Structure formats: C-alpha cells, structure tokens
C-alpha cells in the first residue's frame, strides 16, 4: 500500500503511521533498526529503496528516505508511506525535501526515528566528504557510503581513510568479503610459509581493488604492488608470493575465479560481483565499528603507486 501525503509535516506523517498501525495492525513486526537513505531525488532513488527492501527481509527495519529535491523550489515536504507488499518486510517513509528544507534533512528525519533502535545512514550515491560530520551521519551508529558511486572513486576512498571515524563503512569494502574469505582460507592450509610480497590487479578506478591492496599491506606487512588493467571490471587478480610458489586468485570475467596454489590442482570458484542488496544485508549484520576496515584504510598509505599497466 502506498499513501501519498503531499505538502506535509513530519507530525502528520507520524500520526498517519499510528493510524495505519491501529487500523491495520499490520505494522507489528519487530523492527531492529532505522535505515536512513540520503540521496538526490531522481532515477537512482527507486533502486536504492528496492535494495533496502530486499535487505529488510533479513533485517526488519524502518526505512526513512530523505530525498533532496530542487533547492530553488518553495520550501515543502512531500511525504509518502509504503507498507505491505510495496515495502518488503519494512515500512518505507519517503520524504521529498524541497527548497531550503533540502539542506535540513536531519530535522525532518529525527521525529520519525524508531525509539531506542540503532540508526544506520546510507548514501547510495556520492556521499559527503566526511560522513561523520554530516548532520544525518552524526546521528547514526553506522554510516554506509559507496566510493564506487563517487565521481573519482579512488580519490574518494583515500579521502575516507583520512576522515575515518569508527562506525564508517563503505560498500566497496563489503564487495570484497568473498575475495578476502578465499585468501584467508588459502593461508589456512599447508605449506605454512610467510608471505613475502603481494600483487593486486584491477581497474584503475576500482576502490575495492585499492582496499584489497590496503588490507593485504596492513596485515601482511610486505610490499604490495598495485597493477592497473583495463581488461575487466573491478578486481581481476591477487597473487601472494611465498618461497614455495605463489598463491593466485584470478577472475578475468567478473564471475568465476581460479585459485592456484603450488602442489595443488587449480580450483575454480564462483566469485560473481555482489549486488547492492547483498552488500547491504551484510552491512546491516553488524552495527559496531569495523576495525578491520579501519586497518585496511590505513594500509592504503603503505601502497606503492601504480607500477605497471596492463591494457586490453
């Protein structure tokens, strides 16, 4: 069900929510968090809401969308409440903010937050430079950005390293989890030898590749070479050098990876790129600061700049 509340105020939205709950009794599910989506009003907005709805199947939540409309229009909030089939396992409140209100998202969001429940703010597009300083970031326990959506992803991820505050996280980091899991598991089996060096190959503007290199540099404490390529999207290959031979994880097509280790047959692994909703589900699973992400960000400064370019 979608209920439009044009030219409204947050207290009207609130009383409508209470009314819906009393009349339908449908909104009685346990909500575990409030997810605030901050974005510009436009085509991308629905995709973000859809991803959040899918994620709500694992994390029942109230979703508040603060959509910034035209700043030159007259000050106005257009509200919309979606429940039931139109909202997954959540309730979605879309607030379209016009004119001077576009910069006042916080004042519109605060009255609608769930009591006690943690707040997560997600910028599906280009987020603020310092998420923790943003008014809507400051009220949240977790701040999810997506460097890959920024105009200059690599510069953005490096800026995130400088401005990191516990509670920050980035979907470029979340997309790495499967890669990291495979690499960690590869070091769990014999031969147990120290890694002497590492090479990470990927697109020039792939923030995930940067973070993977940063993570390896921070944890392995060895020189990590960052190689850029134009042959495929995202991360393409990782190799860890060891005395008895290299461990290599290679994904040329963005779907299937091949893991080669000395003395063992090559193994193929399904390693497809993850959708936004998958990444979001993983992200909402934890609400405490991610220390490992922080170390990976610090690792970025240990990287040597581009040493080699492979082109198609």
């Amino acid at each position, binding site marked *: 069900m979608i209920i439009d509340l044009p030219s409204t105020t947050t207290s009207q939205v609130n009383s409508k929510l209470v009314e819906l709950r009393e009349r339908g009794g449908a909104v009685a599910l*346990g909500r575990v968090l409030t997810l605030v989506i901050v974005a510009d009003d436009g085509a991308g907005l629905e995709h973000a809401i859809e991803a959040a709805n899918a994620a709500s199947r694992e994390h029942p939540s109230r979703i508040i969308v603060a959509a910034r409309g035209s700043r030159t229009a007259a000050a106005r909030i257009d509200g919309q409440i979606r429940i039931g089939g139109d909202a997954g*396992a959540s309730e979605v409140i879309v607030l379209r903010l016009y004119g001077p209100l576009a910069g006042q998202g916080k004042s519109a969001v605060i009255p609608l937050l769930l009591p006690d429940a943690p707040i997560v703010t997600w910028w599906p597009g280009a987020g603020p430079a310092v998420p923790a300083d943003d008014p809507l970031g400051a009220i949240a326990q977790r701040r999810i950005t997506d460097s890959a959506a920024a105009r200059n992803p690599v510069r953005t991820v490096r800026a995130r390293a400088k401005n990191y505050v516990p509670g920050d996280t980035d979907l470029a980091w979340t997309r790495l989890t499967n890669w990291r899991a495979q690499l*960690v598991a590869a*070091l769990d089996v*014999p031969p*147990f030898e120290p*890694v002497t060096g590492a090479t990470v190959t990927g697109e020039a503007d792939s923030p995930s590749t940067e973070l993977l290199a940063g993570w390896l540099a921070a*944890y392995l404490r060895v020189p990590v070479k960052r190689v850029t390529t134009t042959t495929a999207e995202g991360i393409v290959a990782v190799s860890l050098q060891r005395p008895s031979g290299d461990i290599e994880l290679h994904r040329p097509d963005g779907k299937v990876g091949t893991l080669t280790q000395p003395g063992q047959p090559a193994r193929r*692994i399904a390693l497809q790129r993850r959708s936004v909703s998958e990444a979001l589900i993983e992200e909402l699973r934890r609400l405490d600061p991610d220390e490992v992400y922080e*170390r990976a960000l610090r690792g970025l400064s240990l990287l040597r700049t581009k040493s080699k370019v492979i082109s198609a």
Partner: protein
Amino acid sequence: MARSWQNPLRDERDKRLPRIAGPASLVIFGVTGDLARKKLMPAIYDLANRGLLPPGFALIGFARRDWADQDFGEIVHDAVAEHARTPFRESVWQRLAEGIRFVPGSFDDNEAFQRLAKTVTELDDERGTGGNHAFYLSVPPGAFPVVTQQLAKAGLTGGDGWRRVVVEKPFGHDLKSACELNAIVNSVFAEESVFRIDHYLGKETVQNILALRFANQLFEPIWNANYVDHVQITMAEDIGLGGRAGYYDGIGAARDVIQNHLLQLLAFTAMEEPLSFEPSQLRAEKVKVLRATSPVEPFDETTARGQYGGGWQGGAKVPGLLQEEGFAPDSTTETYAAVTLAVQNRRWAGVPFYLRSGKRLGRRVTEVAVVFKRAPHLPFDSTATEELGQNALVIRVQPDEGVTMRFGSKVPGTTMEVRDVTMDFGYGHAFTESSPEAYERLILDVLLGEPSLFPGNDEVELSWQILDPVLEHWAAKGAPETYPPGSWGPPSADAVLARTGRSWRRP
C-alpha cells in the same frame, strides 16, 4: 609447524569473513532417499551459493543404481532446482557440478567400496580435497555395521587429512540398541569424528534459546522453581504418516521425536550457564541436566499416548493410522506421546516438564512454553482478575519463529478488570526466508569439524535412559487411545495435566 602457524590475514575482530570449510569432499550413502533429495543436496548448493564451500569441493553419491556421474549430476541438479533456498545461479552450479561423482554398488559389494576408495583418491589429486572426507550415512541404522565395516576394509577410515562420519536419527530404539550402535560406529570412527545430526539443533531459534537465556539479565533471575510453575515443550504436526510406514511402524512418536528433539530442547531450556560456548563446555552442561532428568511415575497418570483415527481434518477426509498403507491393521504404534519429566536439581525441583509430540494435530508448531506461577498476592477484587491466567514466555521454534510473552493488562473502561494480553516478538516472517536452513549449518559444521550442535553419544544414551521406563510401561499396555485428526491429542493427555490442576497451552 602447523601449531605455531599464525595466519597473518586472520583477525578475530573480522566478523564479516564467513567460515569457509577447508578442502574436503562429502560422500553420501543413500542418495536416492527423500532426505538426500529434499534437504542434503539443496543445502549443499545453498552453501556453495553463499560461498561457504571450499574451492574444489567434491560430492560423491553411492547407491545401487546404474548411473554415471552425469546421471547423478542431473539428479542433484533437479533436487537443487526444486528445493534450494537461494536462487539458482548457473556459475555456482557449474563449479559444484565439476566435483560431482557417482559410485554404483550395494553395501555388501567389496568391489564397489574399492571403487569408492579409488574415486576418493582421484579426487585428492584432481580437486585437491587433501584426504579430507566426510561420510554421510543417510541409511537405516540396520545398515550402519556393514557400511562402517566396508569403509574400514577399503581403507577409507584412515590416511592423510580427516575422516568424519555423519549419522541420522534414529540413534537406536532403546538404551541397549543405542549402546550397540555407538559401539559399532565408534569401533571404526573415534567419537570426536562422529557427528549425529539432530536437525533441530541447527535451527536459529534453538540457538536463540541460549542467547535469550544467557545474554539477557531480564529472564535468568526468574528462570527457576521459585517463579516457574511448569514447562511445556510441544512439537506438533498436522500431517499423517502416509508413505512412512517402513520407518515409523513400531517406532512411534516418543522414539521418533521426544528422545532426540524434545529432550534436546529440554536440555537447552533447563541447563545451567556453560563456562563458555566451547563445544565441550556446552555438552558438559547438557549432559549434567539430562543426567538430572527422570520420568515421573505413576506412568498411567503422568504419560499419555494416542493414535490418530480417521475423519475430517481441515477440509479433507483423512484415513486413520490403521488404514494408512503399510501399517499393520492392529498396529500399536503411537502417533501421539506425552510424558512428564522432573529435573532434579536445585533450580528445577518441583517443576514438571511436560513434553508432547504428535501427528495429525491441530497445526504444525514447535514451541517451548515456560509458564510462571501466579502472583502471590493480588490487590484486586477477585472479580477483577477472573480472566487473568498465568504469565508465560513462549519460544516459538517453528513456524513463525519468535518469542511470545503473556501477561495481564487492564481492560480499557471504568472498572478495574485485568485480562491476559500477548506481546509478540517475531524475527519477521521474512527472517525464515533468508535464514539458513538447519542442514546448511550442520553440514558446514561437519566440514569445519565444529561439534557443538551435535549430540554426543553420552547425550544419546542418557536420553534413552530417561525414556526407556516409559516405553517399557507402554509396551505392556496394548493399543493406544484413538484421537480424532486435527485435535490436540487424546483425552488422557489432558488428564495428565489436569491431575495437578494445569492444562495444555493451545499453541
């Protein structure tokens, strides 16, 4: 070296990383069975889809069928397409399919086991399974001795890497047979490599009982005989036993469900806090509480059993047990069983635990209901609290997973009147859709060698020790009482609670 090796990339704070099993293969005996098709194969695919299986994972089927690897691959494919929880992805399936093998043969065929040994060795070379192999015995317990002996004879129970064996219930049909079964399995596999599957323990909600009890301050202070009046553990199914005669006739509800699932639920509900969640610590506490548990006599009054008759249930005419195909017309197998247990320790002295399970009951539900004592003094007129029942905390295990609390609240109006209301926590209907199936968790734990969610042989033997006296009593009693389909069991079950002024909760 292995011991001192510290994986530099591991960080215990890294909660994102899934636990991926090391290189391994899984050999399934009894691949043509229902369980393998509906649960095991889909669970393996779902694990692969979630990226939790090791690269190079191999799945080997063993059955008396004239199949090639591809034929078996097709069977798995169809099972996955029909029953898997996660969406079908060709790329994931292709990786899994590369590691699928089939070995035809019967259990008494030495050569077939030699072929199996050869296949396993080949997989070590081709797929790098590294000598790590788990054997899943999805076969009747009667076949355990021959299969385990054959595995030993073919040299499959030793070598590099680890060897584990997975067995399904029933773990025997009484204490004696369970001990024999354990002895047979343990003669070939050491106890730490035996994994007994009780799929209830893989369910999120069952694990949540531990979180609810030991992570909160709210419940533990009242979780004892001072406040708790009694506990009801129910597992009801609305379906009958058509087509399951071979397994069920002569077994009955108590052996099928109470001995394993319900006693495990009791152990989780009643156990003391473990020192830690180390598998050995958790087991130690479960064993302790099971050791303190015994059935309450006289059994004529404290237990009940029934058998469903024919009639109308939920808009369909259903046959009674005796008319179901495959059951003897004079079968005395019970399809409903209720027992009263006492946990003799300081925490629970005097609190009866009522366990019941049955087929063709009102609806499908599994829950643990902790019913509290009445408030010692009510400062209201007796008319004000006429409708007030006992407070209750209900852990709903399935379906509609969650927790319900019942307590008194004032009825709006000018008079003071208190009535029971329900407070509900549902982890979303949704949660069930995306939460892992129990078998996924358990198969992964087998591959990881993580035994906390598997009952040890001492737990199995203790459970039989609790149930055996009741079963003996029933065996001497002839036919069980008939109850109509779709009801909540025979009248004698109500009498079990009524004798102490209590009544079953309607789930």
